[in-house]
């Protein structure tokens, strides 16, 4: 055979010589070469031979070489010998990092997905991503290659590379986590997998959906993402109490279709919440009954919603496409029942659909009665039982896709143990974790999955001493020098999502603050009268000038009007009290500190938008030697995600030695160059500490406030003081203290105060 090789294909000749020496491998390669030669001609095989040789050189091993042989044959029609050669080179590079088994798997995966890869660029992505993975985590390459079909979708090849990068970043040096991620056993991996090839998802659409639901039903809905559970992305919306939980993405639905599906799904869930039944007790209903009652209830709430908003029919109708051709399964039949109930004009050969339509139409007069869903559902379920149609509780998925999983309709607290297994199967099928021991409080929001979230790190207990300050001893009537030590507390970054959610829910207040910002930002144009030049005549001045001339006096020639923008030159420092008393909970479960954080975050947003210099500090104390001050944001750093995270990470504890805190922040703001300086103190009560009587600390704080005023720093106290008996006025002065009676009002009051102060 080697005699046939002309000397213008030296690589091919070299390959032949190598292969001739190996028995099985040689035969297979000879065959492969013949088939390629028949298609492309011998001379064109040179780059291919280079690829094979590269693999041989890295000692790829028989299985990898055979894998490349298979790939060459399979892809001969699709790829040129040059492209195959590139593949061989890439496989060789991978082999060097990850070994023969991984390379074999990668080649097999490549064959599977080759039809999805458009052009050289996309093929290179596959190999490049695997090589990146091999360099960091060689043990994971095989697992990823085995999942090629799920990870590489046509048109979304680049996202594969993103997936690999995300996995490496998420797992870090944790081998176990890395292995789980790339074997697709990790929740984060599943979440990312679901996003590959899926069009706009919950994150992109949430704001819009919130608005549409608020517009139609009058109250802002509580929308949350439904995390993947049990190894798969959720496929249907879930309603839990008043919370609508939507999947992160609807797999396989993209672009405008995804928008429509989310809208249809959210409005369907909204109809449940606003015209539906609170919850049916599950008692001893069988799964098929539960499914059918849910189906009727869906139709009932949709009919009621469409009576109010007729346009909803246009939104939902395109999803009802079930026909008898879909197959003889019960699931297909149920989809047709859903269609029949939605569209009374739909006719179906199956009597069950007709019966459902007739029963539902007969109940037209009492659509407001949720009991009819149970009644009709039970009758239809009995029919299904008599026809011996098997209901697959585990595999049941509500159709059409926009409808919720139906479990929000049921109250599981009084479940009959005899049927609980079957129901649980169904529940499991819908992939919702049942919350044991829940007392059925309808408004309790499900706790969110902690997947992918860094656990807040505990702050260092005591930091270095950064300053010492004197303190006023009211008993002795002297100021004791260097009495208190301030320690820097490194703020631990916290989870900013609860804070963001609170901000989102404070929509109206934020809109109001945004208006204030807009008004303040432009700067109020102040009008200057009696100017030597200007754009307009100052009529009053002009008339006086004429009068003066006629009277023989010297007229004032400044007869123009002009306008000037008032310049803002203002620095503000917000000092937040995070002592133990801020741990108190309000009626809705948020703590006082949470409200303080929200208030500060809203003000910070406004200040950042205004461009005013500002800083955020928090303080607590544990005796005079341990006054902890936490710099959330300094004057010279921007208010960014890191600052927000530090704000979110503040935790309650210890006491309130206000005077020391004030002295420290007073020293900070004193260094800033600005015409006006404001310190806003946000505290929830009385100064106190473990080693001194509270009245003394009030005296001390009062003294600091007066000292700061001498330095041109205005101090204002916003005190959370529901009883109106606090010592805020005693410390800050009556005009400079603002007791907030309702703690919930704090965010708005704080910002209002700022804008009021900033104008003066």
């Amino acid at each position, binding site marked *: 055979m080697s005699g046939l090789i002309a000397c213008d294909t030296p690589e091919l000749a070299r390959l032949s010589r190598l292969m001739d020496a190996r028995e099985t491998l040689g035969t297979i390669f000879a065959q492969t070469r013949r088939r390629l030669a028949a298609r492309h001609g011998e001379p064109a095989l040179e780059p291919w031979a280079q690829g094979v040789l590269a693999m041989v050189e890295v000692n790829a091993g028989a299985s990898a070489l055979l894998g490349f042989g298979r790939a060459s044959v399979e892809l001969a029609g699709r790829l040129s010998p040059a492209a195959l050669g590139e593949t061989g080179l890439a496989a060789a590079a991978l082999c060097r990092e990850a070994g023969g088994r991984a390379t074999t798997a990668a080649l097999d995966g490549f064959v599977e997905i080759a039809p999805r890869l458009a052009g050289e660029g996309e093929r290179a992505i596959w190999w490049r991503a695997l090589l990146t993975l091999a360099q960091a985590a060689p043990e994971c390459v095989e697992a990823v290659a085995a999942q090629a079909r799920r990870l590489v979708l046509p048109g979304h090849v680049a996202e594969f590379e993103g997936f690999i990068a995300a996995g490496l970043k998420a797992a870090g040096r944790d081998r176990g986590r890395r292995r789980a991620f790339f074997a697709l056993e990790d929740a984060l991996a599943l979440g990312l997998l679901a996003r590959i090839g899926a069009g706009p998802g919950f994150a992109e659409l949430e704001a819009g959906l919130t608005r549409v639901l608020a*517009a139609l039903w009058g109250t802002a809905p509580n929308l949350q993402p439904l995390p993947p559970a049990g190894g798969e992305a959720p496929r249907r919306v879930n309603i839990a109490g008043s919370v609508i939980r939507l999947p992160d993405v609807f797999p396989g639905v993209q672009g405008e279709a995804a928008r429509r599906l989310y809208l249809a799904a959210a409005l369907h869930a909204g109809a449940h919440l606003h015209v539906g039944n609170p919850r049916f007790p599950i008692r001893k209903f069988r799964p098929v009954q539960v499914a059918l009652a849910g189906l009727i209830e869906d139709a009932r709430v949709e009919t009621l919603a469409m009576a109010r908003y007729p346009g909803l029919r246009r939104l939902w109708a395109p999803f009802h496409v079930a026909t008898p051709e879909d197959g003889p399964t019960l699931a297909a039949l149920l989809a047709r029942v859903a269609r029949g109930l939605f569209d009374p004009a739909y006719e179906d050969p199956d009597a069950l659909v007709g019966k459902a339509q007739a029963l539902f139409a007969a109940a037209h007069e009492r659509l407001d009665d949720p009991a009819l869903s149970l009644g009709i559902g039970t009758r239809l379920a009995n029919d299904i039982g008599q026809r011996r149609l098997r209901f697959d509780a585990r595999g049941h998925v509500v159709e059409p896709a926009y409808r919720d999983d139906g479990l929000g309709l049921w109250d599981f607290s009084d479940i009959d143990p005899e049927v609980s297994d079957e129901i649980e199967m169904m529940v499991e099928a819908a992939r919702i974790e049942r919350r044991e021991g829940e007392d059925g409080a309808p408004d309790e929001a499900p706790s969110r999955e902690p997947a992918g979230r860094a656990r807040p790190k505990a702050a260092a207990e005591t930091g270095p001493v950064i300053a010492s300050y004197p303190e006023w001893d009211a008993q002795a009537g002297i100021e004791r020098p260097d009495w208190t030590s301030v320690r820097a507390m490194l703020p631990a970054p916290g989870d900013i999502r609860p804070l963001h959610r609170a901000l989102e829910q404070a929509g109206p207040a934020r*809109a109001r603050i945004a208006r204030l910002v807009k*008004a303040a930002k432009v700067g109020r144009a102040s009008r200057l009268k009696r100017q030597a030049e200007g754009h307009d005549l100052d009529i009053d001045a002009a008339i006086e000038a004429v009068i003066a001339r006629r009277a023989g006096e010297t007229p004032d020639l400044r007869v123009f009007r002009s306008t000037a923008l008032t310049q803002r030159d203002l620095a503000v420092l917000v000092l937040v009290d995070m002592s133990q008393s801020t741990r108190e909970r309000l009626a809705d479960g948020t703590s006082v500190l949470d409200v303080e954080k929200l208030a500060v975050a809203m003000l910070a947003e406004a200040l950042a938008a205004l461009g005013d210099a500002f800083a955020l500090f928090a303080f607590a104390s544990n005796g005079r030697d341990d006054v902890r001050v936490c710099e959330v944001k300094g004057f010279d750093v921007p208010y960014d995600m890191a600052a927000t995270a530090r704000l979110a990470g503040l935790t309650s504890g210890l006491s309130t030695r206000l005077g020391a805190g004030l002295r420290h922040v007073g020293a900070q703001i004193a260094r800033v160059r600005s015409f006006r300086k404001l310190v806003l103190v946000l505290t929830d009560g009385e100064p106190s500490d473990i080693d001194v009587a509270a009245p003394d600390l009030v005296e001390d704080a009062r003294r600091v406030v007066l000292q700061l005023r001498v330095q041109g720093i205005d101090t204002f106290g916003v005190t959370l003081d529901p009883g109106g008996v606090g010592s805020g006025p005693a410390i800050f002065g009556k005009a400079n203290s603002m007791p907030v009676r309702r703690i919930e009002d704090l965010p708005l009051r704080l910002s209002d105060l700022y804008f009021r102060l900033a104008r003066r």
Partner: protein
Amino acid sequence: MPSALSSISADPSANLAVDPSPDLAAFRIAVEPYYRPVGDEIAVFEAAWRHRLPVMLKGPTGCGKTRFVEHMAWRLGRPLITVAAHEDMTAADLAGRFLLAPEGTVWQDGPLTQAVRHGALCYLDEIVEARQDTTVVIHPLTDARRLLPLEKRNEQVRAHEDFQLVISYNPGYQSAVKDLKESTKQRFVAIAFDYPAPELEAEIVMREAGADLALARILVAIAACSRNLRGQGLDEGASTRMLIHAGRLASGGVSLEAAVEAAIVLPITDDADMRRALNAAISACLP
């Protein structure tokens, strides 16, 4: 639409006339302006009128405050002088000033002084827009003194017995930056206005836009949706006035979708995301 109403700025001849006719004929309203009472606002206004108490009308834009004043002026048979307050308005713009004439300086009454002298209803629209010093001018007029001091003329104008002051005030704009002083607020009898109940609003839209009941109901449902978005990205929901505009467009041959888009969605927001959400809600309202 009755158009007997003329505002000061719209009628320069009235502005410059050195001595307008004492009966203020140009300011009288001849034809009844349509007004559909929602509650007891007419009775409250008439009671306030009997005692010449100053009245403050509070409510969102386009809910019928101005129309109500016109209607009351017609009902009481008094001329109505309307002043639209603006940021640059000074006390002199309201009270009057000396002007130059060939023979020397001439005093020109401002709209407020005219109303005070000759006994008209004076309606200060969106009073918060004016500078705060302007609002102080009205203080002596709105308590037991009922007089307007003109310090430049060294004159105290005692109010005509038929003079009454009405101001409007939109709490939607209320903010720390622009708000009435407490001392101003507390001088007024206030009447709160809001968008009428759906059935009533549909009736008003029908009457004013010449629309049929079905169309009016759809428009009212759309307005309800937009008002639900107040604070969710919209500063104000669609006003009754907007609905009337949309209704006129739609009954004038424009398709309902286009009319709603042109008269409600586009004016109300510049934010593309908000527009998309609003359109989705409107689409649900359309048959």
